[in-house]
């Protein structure tokens, strides 16, 4: 049995293929440019180098690209072969920012990868992660009915493991925790697009809002937890989180 992956909404940046859903690179580009310091940037995994090319050619940034295999077709960025499951070949506090587009759901060691990014990003630097949004109402409804999330709708085939497998689906609260323990604070939550079908699930919102409010209120035995409860509650009920296709999270290293 073989799982077929389809990427119906890939875009072309010149002759380079963008390995992500529509509009993702535009949103990430905007989030990078909002930063005061964004000169030195790491794009990992870079794929064919579409995002790196965009940032170099449009804004003349000092972009480094890395991926677990050399399929980079853009020569204007310093490319190295690097595995996100292992140490990254960069010095401590080297980058103003790291961009991770559709990468974290493919790796075995997401905790270690975030820790490693915490090492190579300068204090005050930023970290942008793009991953399938399994905290969206549509994905949550699918989980209720099938036990599978959007972005990983079918069982994975262990007899034919491939890098394209989504092996680490992560919800927003889990991602927040993984970032927080490595010194990051989420500053922006965005999405690439909201499909029309996703809006159809808005009738479920009142139930979810009510139940979540009750549940989060109940779990507040100490001030730190109360603060985190409120933070998570706010993050869970933003439009991008509830309806977005991809979750685009920007975090600052504090």
């Amino acid at each position, binding site marked *: *049995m073989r799982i077929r992956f389809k990427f119906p909404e890939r875009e072309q940046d010149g002759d380079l293929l963008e390995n992500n859903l529509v509009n993702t690179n535009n949103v990430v580009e905007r989030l990078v440019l909002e930063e005061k310091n964004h000169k030195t940037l790491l794009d990992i995994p870079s794929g064919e180098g579409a995002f790196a090319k965009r940032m170099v050619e449009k804004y003349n940034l000092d972009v480094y690209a890395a991926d677990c295999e050399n399929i980079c077709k853009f020569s204007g960025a310093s490319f190295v072969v690097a595995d996100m499951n292992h140490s990254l070949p960069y010095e401590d506090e080297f980058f103003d920012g790291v961009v991770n587009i559709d990468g974290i759901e493919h790796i075995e060691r997401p905790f270690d990868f975030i820790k490693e990014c915490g090492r190579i990003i300068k204090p005050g630097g930023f970290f942008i992660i793009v991953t399938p949004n399994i905290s969206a109402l549509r994905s*949550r409804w699918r989980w209720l009915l*099938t036990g599978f999330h959007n972005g990983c709708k079918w069982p994975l085939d262990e007899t034919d493991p491939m890098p394209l497998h989504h092996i680490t689906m992560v919800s927003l609260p889990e991602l927040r925790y993984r970032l927080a323990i490595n010194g990051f604070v989420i500053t922006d939550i965005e999405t690439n697009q909201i499909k029309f079908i996703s809006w159809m699930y808005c009738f*479920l919102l009142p139930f979810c809002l009510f*139940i*979540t409010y009750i*549940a989060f209120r109940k*779990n507040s035995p100490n001030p730190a937890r109360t603060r*985190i409860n409120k933070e998570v509650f706010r993050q*869970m009920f933003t439009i991008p989180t509830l309806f977005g296709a991809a979750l685009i999270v920007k975090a600052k290293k504090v």
Partner: protein
Amino acid sequence: MSELIEELASGGVHDKVFEIARKLPGTRIFDAPTGYGALTDRLLSAGKIVTAGDIDVEQFKLNPDRKNLTLLRIDLTDPKPAVEDEGYDIAICVEGVEHLENQWILARNLCRLLKPSGYLILTTPNIVNFRSRLRYFLEGRYEFFKRPLVQGKSIVHDLNVYHIAPVSYFELQFILESSGFAIKELYANKYSSRNVVSILLRPLFRLIYAYKDRRDKKRNRGDHAELYRTIMSDEIYYGETLIVVAQKKLL
């Protein structure tokens, strides 16, 4: 004796795991994380030779000099932990996976330390049961992963207390089968999700999976009929903690 040592697991998990381990062939057992040592104590009393491992051995309450017992400080997510390769008949990992950052390294380590055809007994909270699915839909959090995690605590505290890595049965199956195991049996400690609502809705879920199976076949996504039957088994649909028995595959 075991009744004096607190069990760091959901009710009934140690009983079930002990019952399974006793019936499996072989006497050399690796038990990690051992926690206070409640299960280790029972295994020793049953005549097994046990290596008990934990990242925090200070909490171990048995006498480490006890006959047939070896106590080991071990981080199971260390890519090269100091454990004998292919030295054990059975590896037991009770309520460990959900506390660790690297499930893949854990699975490979457990496979490495087992003799060929050795058995693994692994337990983890079942996030695919009816209650957990409903909770994730309503709150965006799985059952047993409800508490918000406070990052101010030390890492050791996090690992001991927090459930940081929810793993569904399908993910666990994928990790284990990719790491050299074949899943043999599936149990649950108790059917805590069995209630009027989940029983009444079960036929609806069966219909959904029948439709999904038909569509998968039609679209050449593979034959998942067996897996969908497993999803609707009592163990997964109602079970609180999953107890997976896997066997190390022969190369």
